[in-house]
C-alpha cells in the first residue's frame, strides 16, 4: 500500500486546548502519512487525541483548541501541494468538503431535523457548485442517494422518518457529494447495531474502490479496524505509539499498549481465554505522567520508561512499521 503516492502528510503536529501553562496537550508530535486509495485506521481510547487530530487536519478545531505547531500538506492529483494550516478562511471554504470531507461521530444526529434530505443534499451543491442548475442538483442528489443504497423517493423525507442506519448513509452520501479525495470517518458506526455496522462498512469499502478516495477511519474498536483498514496507527495520550499494516498489528503487536488493546476484546471464535484488559485507567491529559504516557499501566515498564519519552521509530529489522517503545529501541 505504501507504494502509492501520499495524499496527506502530517508532520510534527501539536494541538493544545487552552493557552499558557495550563494548556492541555491533546495531540503531540504526530507524524502520519495517508497514501492514495488507502484506508488508514486510527485507534485509541477516549481522550487519546484521535478526534482532535481529525479536527485539526480539517481546521475545524473550535476554541480553546489551538494548533501550536507542525505541518499538514495535501497533495492533489494535479497542481501544487496545499499547506492546509496556512489557508485563509476563503480558501478553506473552497478546500473543505471538495477535497476532504468528514462523517462525524453521532452523524445520525447531525442532520437538520426541520429540512428534508433533498434540501440538505442540494445545499452542499448550491454552496460549492454555484454553476449547477436546480435540475442538475436534484439529479445529483438522487444519484448520491442511490449510491448509498437508498431509493430516490426518500429525498422528500425528513430525518426523523429514516432509521438510524439510513440517516448514517445520508451523511455518507453528503460527504461524497463533491467527490472528495479524502473522507474522514470519526466513529461512523458507534451508535449502530453490529448488523447495520457491517452493512455500512461493506458499502463504504465498495464505494472506496469505485470512487477511489482515501479514508481515515477513527474508532476505538480495534477489531473492526483490523477488518476494514489497510494500515493502523494506535494513539495513546496524544501520541502515536505504533503504526503498521492491519494484519501485522493483529499478528504481532509490538507496543505493550497495542497488545493490551487487542486483548481487551473477547473473541467470538477460537479458544476461550482468560482476558485481563489493561490495569489502571487512561491518563488524565491535565496530569500526564513523565516519560512514556503508558508506563504506569505497562507490565513491561523498565528503567528509561518513566523518564524519557520514546520516539516513534522504525522497528529494528522491519522498516515498514514503527513503534514508540523503549523495548524496541535500537540502543
Amino acid at each position, binding site marked *: 500500500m505504501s507504494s502509492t503516492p501520499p495524499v496527506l502528510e502530517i508532520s510534527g503536529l501539536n494541538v493544545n486546548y487552552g493557552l499558557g501553562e495550563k494548556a492541555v496537550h491533546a495531540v503531540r508530535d504526530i507524524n502520519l502519512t495517508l497514501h492514495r486509495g488507502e484506508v488508514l485506521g486510527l485507534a485509541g481510547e477516549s481522550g487519546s487525541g484521535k478526534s482532535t487530530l481529525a479536527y485539526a487536519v480539517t481546521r475545524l478545531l473550535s476554541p480553546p483548541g489551538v494548533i501550536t505547531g507542525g505541518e499538514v500538506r495535501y497533495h492533489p492529483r494535479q497542481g501544487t501541494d496545499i499547506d492546509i494550516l496556512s489557508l485563509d478562511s476563503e480558501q478553506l471554504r473552497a478546500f473543505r468538503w471538495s477535497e476532504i470531507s468528514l462523517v462525524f461521530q453521532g452523524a445520525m444526529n447531525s442532520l437538520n431535523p426541520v429540512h428534508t434530505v433533498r434540501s440538505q443534499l442540494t445545499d452542499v451543491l448550491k454552496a460549492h457548485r454555484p454553476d449547477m442548475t436546480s435540475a442538475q442538483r436534484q439529479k445529483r442528489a438522487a444519484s448520491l442517494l442511490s449510491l448509498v443504497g437508498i431509493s430516490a423517493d426518500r429525498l422528500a423525507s425528513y430525518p426523523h422518518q429514516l432509521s438510524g442506519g439510513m440517516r448514517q448513509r445520508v451523511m455518507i452520501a453528503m460527504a461524497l457529494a463533491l467527490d472528495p479525495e479524502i473522507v474522514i470517518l470519526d466513529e461512523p458506526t458507534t451508535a449502530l447495531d453490529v448488523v447495520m455496522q457491517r452493512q455500512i462498512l461493506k458499502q463504504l469499502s465498495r464505494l472506496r474502490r469505485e470512487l477511489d478516495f482515501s479514508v481515515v477511519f477513527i474508532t476505538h474498536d480495534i477489531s473492526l479496524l483490523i477488518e476494514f483498514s489497510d494500515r493502523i496507527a494506535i494513539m495513546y495520550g496524544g501520541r502515536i505509539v505504533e503504526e503498521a499494516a492491519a494484519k501485522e498489528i493483529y499478528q504481532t503487536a509490538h507496543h505493550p499498549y497495542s497488545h493490551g*488493546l487487542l486483548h481487551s476484546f473477547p473473541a467470538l471464535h477460537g479458544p476461550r481465554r482468560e482476558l485481563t484488559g489493561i490495569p489502571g485507567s487512561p491518563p488524565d491529559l491535565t496530569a500526564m505522567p513523565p516519560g512514556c504516557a503508558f508506563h504506569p499501566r505497562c507490565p513491561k515498564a523498565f528503567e528509561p520508561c518513566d523518564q524519557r519519552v520514546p520516539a516513534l521509530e522504525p522497528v529494528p529489522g522491519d522498516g515498514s512499521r514503527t513503534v514508540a517503545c523503549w523495548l524496541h529501541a535500537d540502543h
Partner: protein
Amino acid sequence: MAKTPDPPGTATNSPPSEGEVVLEARAISKHFAVRRTLRNFADRNRPVVHAVDDVSLKLRRGSVTAVVGESGSGKSTIARLLAQLYPTSGGQLLLHGKPTKVGQGRAFRAYCRQVQLIFQDPFGSLNPTHTVRYHLTRALRIHNRAGRTAKDLEQALAQLLERVHLTPPERYLDSFPHELSGGQRQRVAIARAMAADPSVLLADEPVSMLDVSIRLGILNLLRDLKERLNLAILYITHDIASARYFADETLVMYAGRMVEGGDSETVTQRPAHPYTQLLTSSAPDPDRIVADHSAATTVDPAGGEVVVEEEESETAGEPPSLISPPSGCRFHPRCPKAMERCRTQVPPRFDLADGQWAACWLYAEDAPERPAPQEASA
C-alpha cells in the same frame, strides 16, 4: 432478608445448592401505550409498543445469564421489569419460587434488598454533588446494614470498597464522582448495589460506556463477585462476543421476543436461529478477516454481483416496528430461510441438543428438513 444488621461480606444464610433458581420470569410481557395524539385521543384501543412479549427466563445462583440483542429489542426493558421498576403487562415474576408483585414502599424496598440493578452510565447514575461515602452510606442505611456504631459503618464501607478493588478505601471514600475515572465510578456503582447484599444483580450494559481497555476489568470483577458471593447475574449486552466470554447461559432477543437460548459456548459457536447466525456473522472478528483478507483482495473488483447482494440485504436490514410487529415470527421479513408458516404462526421453543433451544419453525418436528445447528451455522 437480612433483618439483623451484619456487615456486608459475611454470608449469613447457608450457601444454597449450586444452580438454585433465584429469580424467574414466566411469560412476562410489557406493552407501552403510545402517547395520546389528537387522532387517537378518543380511541379506546390506543396503539401500544410491544416492547417485550412472552419472555421466560431463570436466573440461577452462581451463574451469569446474558441477554443479547440489538437496540430496541427490549433487552433493557427486561432488566427494568425484573427490577420491578415498572409493572409487567402480563406474566409472572417469581422470587425464590414465590410470585411477587410489588408496587412502591415497603414491599418494593424488600424486593430491592434482593434484586439490585446496575446501569449503563456511571456518569449519570452517581450524584455529582455527593461523595462516595454518602452514596454508600445511604445504601447501607436504607438496607439496614450500616451497623449500630460509627465504627461498624466505617468497617462496612471499607469492606464494600475492598470488594470492588478500590483500595485503599480511604483514598476513595471522600472523593466526588468527577474525581474518579469511568471504571472507578462503575466500581462505586457496583459497590452501592452490593451494599444491599443482594442475591440477584441485574447489569444493564455495565461496560458499554467505559473505555475499551478497562471493560474486561469490570467484567472480571463481576465474575469474581458472582463466584465469591454466589450471586445470580443478568448481563444485558449488545456484544455477543462478551456474552460468550462472561456468561454461562446466553439468551438472544429479537424485536421483543426471545429467539434462542442455551449454554453460551453452544449458542455462539453453533447458533441455530437464523437471527443469531446473522448476529455472529456480523460481529467483528479479526481471526476470520486475517484468514480471508488475501482471498478477498485477489477477487477482482467484481462490483456488479457484490452490489446486488448488498442491496438485497439493505432492504431487509432493519428491525421491525414494535407498534405493529410482523405476524408470525418477527424475524420472517429479514429471514433468508422464511417459510409459509413463519408468516402466520408464532414459533414456539423447540428444544435441541445440550439444552439449546430456538424459537424457529426450522426445528419443528414436522419440518421438511430439520437442519442440525452445526450445519446451520456453516
